[in-house]
C-alpha cells in the first residue's frame, strides 16, 4: 500500500484498508521507538499553526525530530506574516520551498483542503475549524487497537460535548470504518450533529443516551470529552448537569474489569484525579500513542516506511 505523497486532510478520505495499514505501521514504530533510527534525516517539516495548540505542536515536532527530521515554522500567528494580512494560500506557497511536508492548524473550516490544493508537497491537517482533526482520530484508533487487539466488535462510549468537539466528529467517522457498537452519551443540548450521525448511521450501530450509568456496564472503551460552560446559554443549566458527566471512581464501579478510559487532553475536572491510579486510566499512555501514530504517518507520507 502506497501512502507516499498523500495529504491527510480528513479521516473520510481513507479506506478501511488504508487505516489498517497506518495502525500496523504504528505498531512497528512502537517496537523501534527506543532505537536511534533516523529515517527522515534531511527532511523538513513546515509547521504552520494559525491558532495555538501546544500539545498538538509538541507531538508533531517530537515525531519529526525523533525520526531525524527538522522542523521550521510558527505557532503564534501574532508574530507571523498572518498578522500582516497574508493569505493562507500565499503562506503555503512560500513555506513549501523550505520543507518536504506541511502540518497546518487553522481556525477556518476547509483551510487544510485549501492548503493542500495550493501546495505541491503533502499537507497534514492538524485541526481545521470545528470539524476535522484526523491525526487525533488515527491516534485514538491506534490506542484502542493496541490496548484491545482489535477495534471490531467493541462497545465504545463517547461522553461529553458531542456537538462542538472536533475530536468527536473525526473519531466517529473513523469508527464507522469498523464494526462497533457506539454509545453516545451527552446532555440533550450537546448531542452529536445531525450530519455526522447521518453519515455514519448506515455503518455503525449507534445509540444515544443522556446518563452514563445506563451504559457503563456495557462498555469496553469510554472516551471522555470536556463540556464547556460557554456552550450553555443558561449558566444554571451547566451547573445542574456538569456533575452527571464527571467520571470518578464511583462511576466506574459497575464498569467492566478491562474498560479503558480515554481523553484527548487537556482535561479539567471531567475525569477526577482519583481515576488516574486505576487500571482504567489510559489517557497519558494515549499521548505516547499519539507520538507513535504521528511518526508512522510522517514516515508513510514521506516514503520512509
Amino acid at each position, binding site marked *: 500500500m502506497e501512502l507516499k505523497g498523500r495529504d491527510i486532510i*480528513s479521516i473520510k478520505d481513507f479506506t478501511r484498508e488504508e487505516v489498517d495499514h497506518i495502525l500496523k505501521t504504528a505498531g512497528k514504530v512502537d517496537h523501534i521507538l527506543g532505537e536511534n533510527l533516523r529515517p527522515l534525516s534531511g527532511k523538513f517539516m513546515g509547521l504552520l499553526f494559525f491558532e495555538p495548540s501546544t500539545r498538538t505542536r509538541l507531538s508533531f515536532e517530537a515525531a519529526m525530530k525523533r525520526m531525524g527530521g527538522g522542523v521550521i515554522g510558527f505557532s503564534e500567528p501574532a508574530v507571523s506574516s498572518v498578522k500582516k*494580512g497574508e*493569505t*493562507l*494560500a500565499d503562506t503555503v506557497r512560500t513555506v513549501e520551498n523550505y520543507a518536504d511536508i506541511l502540518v497546518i492548524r*487553522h*481556525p*477556518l*473550516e*476547509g*483551510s487544510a*483542503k*485549501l492548503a493542500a*490544493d495550493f501546495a505541491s508537497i503533502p499537507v497534514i491537517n492538524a485541526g481545521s*475549524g*470545528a*470539524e476535522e482533526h484526523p491525526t487525533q482520530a488515527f491516534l485514538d484508533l491506534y490506542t484502542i487497537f493496541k490496548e484491545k487487539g482489535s477495534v471490531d466488535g467493541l462497545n465504545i462510549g463517547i461522553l461529553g460535548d458531542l456537538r462542538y468537539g472536533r475530536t468527536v466528529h473525526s473519531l466517529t467517522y473513523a469508527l464507522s470504518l469498523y464494526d462497533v457498537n457506539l454509545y453516545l452519551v451527552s446532555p440533550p443540548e450537546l448531542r452529536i450533529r445531525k*450530519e455526522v450521525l447521518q453519515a455514519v448511521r448506515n455503518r455503525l450501530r449507534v445509540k444515544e443516551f443522556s446518563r452514563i450509568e445506563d451504559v457503563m456496564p456495557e462498555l469496553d472503551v469510554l472516551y471522555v470529552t470536556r463540556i464547556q460552560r460557554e456552550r450553555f446559554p443558561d449558566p444554571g443549566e451547566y451547573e445542574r448537569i456538569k456533575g452527571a458527566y464527571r467520571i470518578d471512581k464511583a462511576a466506574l464501579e459497575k464498569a467492566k474489569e478491562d474498560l479503558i478510559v480515554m481523553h484527548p487532553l487537556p482535561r479539567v475536572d471531567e475525569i477526577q484525579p482519583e481515576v488516574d491510579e486505576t487500571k482504567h486510566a489510559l489517557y497519558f499512555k494515549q499521548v505516547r500513542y499519539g507520538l507513535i501514530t504521528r511518526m508512522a504517518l510522517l514516515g508513510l507520507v514521506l516514503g520512509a516506511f
Partner: protein
Amino acid sequence: MESVSAVVSEELRVEKIRDGTVIDHIDAGTALAVLRILGITGREGYVVSLLMNVSSKKLGKKDMVKVEGRELSPTEVQEIALVAPNATINIIRNFKVLRKERVKPPDLVKDLLKCPNPACVTNSPEPVKAVFHVEVSDGVTLRCYHCGILMEKEDILKQF
C-alpha cells in the same frame, strides 16, 4: 369592461415567442430564482414572460418562463435543476419547439453559490471560490468541497 381585461390577460399569457426558450414545469414560486440563475434582470431588452403559480396537471401548481431571443448554455440548464428539478426546457425556433429537454443537475457547482458556513475558508479573503459537489437522492443536496457543509434546496433559494 370585465371581458376586455379577461381578453388582455389571456393574450399576455399565451403570447408565443418566435425564437428563444420556454422553461416549463418550474416548481411554483421559484421562477424568480430561475431568472437570477440565468442572470436575466429585465433590462436586457428582450421579451420575458413570467407566469407564477398557475395550475399544472403534473405539479399541482407551477411557474413558467419564456425568454425571446435567448438560448441557454448547458451549464445554465444544469443550474436550473438545483432550484427547479422538474423543469423542462423547450428551445423555440420560428414558433416551433425545436428541442425539448429535462434539466439534470451538474456534478459540480462553481461560481454560482456562496458557502453558507461563515467559518468556511471560502468566505475569507483567500483566493478561492466556493465549489460544491452535488448529491442526488431524495432531492438535490450540495456539499461544500472545502468545509463539507450540506445545502438543501431551501438554502440554495435563499441566495436568489
